[in-house]
């Protein structure tokens, strides 16, 4: 029983910390983008706007839940849940320290598990778009489906090189394999590049945020959502960002290894660095056109990822 209790504590702790991080990610994003665009960002609620996120959460909780008359009630209700649950489930095998004592479950196919589970979140988006019975939602959902299917191939392939070098798919094993040698960002720089682009696309962030393109689709798949249901989509998006950043930190940046500071701090620094890049991209890039998006995915990223796999295999076989 103590093992079960310990597990329950770990689960609650991880989910709480991640959801709090998400709340302050939104604040950090607004601040970072604000300063990049030479304006202060949120600054009135609390000291330097630090209470902006709790205020937003409170607002979302007490907001009226609106369901369109012609919407499919059940699908409209289940979609936000289907979006958030996979994102939270994907947190299970993320190792926050070296020994892996802080992670919930060391699955020996950890990375594959994360990819497989977080993939299910796309149904939340598709069903939200379809269930709302609105043109804009449906357009957003269709774009999302096509985009996810195209970029998940590149995302999976970009990690194959890492699996080949470490000989494992477990997050703990991969970070251990890097502690003796160089971080995989050096030998796997091609894979890293493809991973970064595909990860931004998979999380529907700028410059690949076509599913919710504000200028064309109002807000895409979640136009018809308000209150907590809308908050669920928001939570899911940021949780997914944390998950893909964690994979990047583990697979390419040596996990929790570093000098002087404790491993947990190093891990968080790496994850937050990736999150910062997400914000930076959003402040800098315009949105891609739909056909450009498809061309980058199929004609550029996937061949590059395949080339990386072949090169890694040749190097591993002959050197």
């Amino acid at each position, binding site marked *: 029983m103590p093992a079960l209790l310990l597990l329950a504590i770990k689960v609650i702790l991880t989910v709480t910390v991640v959801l709090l991080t998400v709340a302050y990610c939104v604040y950090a994003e607004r601040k970072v983008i604000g300063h990049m665009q030479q304006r202060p960002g949120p600054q009135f609620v609390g000291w330097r706007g630090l209470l902006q996120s709790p205020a937003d959460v409170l607002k979302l909780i007490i907001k009226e839940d609106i369901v369109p008359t012609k919407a*499919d009630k059940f*699908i409209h209700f*289940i979609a936000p849940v289907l979006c958030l649950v996979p994102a939270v489930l994907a947190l299970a095998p993320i190792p926050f320290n070296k020994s892996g004592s802080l992670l919930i479950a060391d*699955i*020996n*196919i950890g990375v*594959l*598990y994360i*990819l*497989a*589970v977080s*993939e*299910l979140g*796309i*149904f939340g988006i*598709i*069903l939200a778009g*379809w*269930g709302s019975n609105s043109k804009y939602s*449906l357009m957003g*959902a*269709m774009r999302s*489906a*096509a985009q*996810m*299917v195209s970029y*998940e191939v590149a995302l*999976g392939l970009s990690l194959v090189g890492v699996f080949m070098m470490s*000989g*494992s*798919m477990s997050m703990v094993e991969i970070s251990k394999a890097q502690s003796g040698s160089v971080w995989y960002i050096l030998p796997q720089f091609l894979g890293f590049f493809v991973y970064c682009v595909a990860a931004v696309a998979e999380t529907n962030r700028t410059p690949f945020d076509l599913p919710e393109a504000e200028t064309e689709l109002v807000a895409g798949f979640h136009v018809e959502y308000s209150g907590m249901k809308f908050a669920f989509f928001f939570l899911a998006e940021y949780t997914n960002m944390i998950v893909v950043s964690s994979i990047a930190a583990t697979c390419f940046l040596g996990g929790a290894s570093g000098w002087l500071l404790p491993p947990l701090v190093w891990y968080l620094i790496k994850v937050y660095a990736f999150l910062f890049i997400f914000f930076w991209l959003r402040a800098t890039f315009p949105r891609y056109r739909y056909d450009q998006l498809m061309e980058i995915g199929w004609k550029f990223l996937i061949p590059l990822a395949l080339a990386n796999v072949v090169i890694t295999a040749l190097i591993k076989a002959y050197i």
Partner: protein
Amino acid sequence: MTVHILLFYFFAFIAVASAIGVITLRNTIHCAVSLLLTFFCVAALFVLLEAEFLAAVQLYIYAGAIMVLVVFVIMLVNVREDLPQPGQIPLNAVAVFVGIGIFFFLMFVIMAGDFSPPRGIYTAAYQAANGGQTKLIGKVLYTEYLFPFEIASVLLLVAMIGGIILPTRRRFRRNGKGKGEMV
């Protein structure tokens, strides 16, 4: 062990119930959600069998990729309820016959199978001692079952080429110089 059995019945029941939902529900999107639930339960059953790799692949490929495409197509073509046209063969009768045939075929194959507990290479202990399930599956797939694997990949390649050629054929015209040209 009892927890295992309870979980098995739980997931098996949901899998069968949602599979029935796939063929009885009226709305095609509801059918698709039902099918998604079935795939998820099958993945859960794989986990109960300690086949984590298969479970993840089941989710990744079937639930993640194939179902997304299915839902995509359903939304794109906006399938309406198909009422039988006069003079058309009632498909229900055909479906019942084919279904019963497949049922008995599968029952025959399953009953002829081996129900003894896993031995040798199939036990979790052996797999853990020999570099894990993923490694073993990879090894077997690329040595012992290389030929079926290659046949499957050629089949997929053919299907892929067909998928590109068939929808674009009407727009594909030969000009006088023997060169194909998209119009």
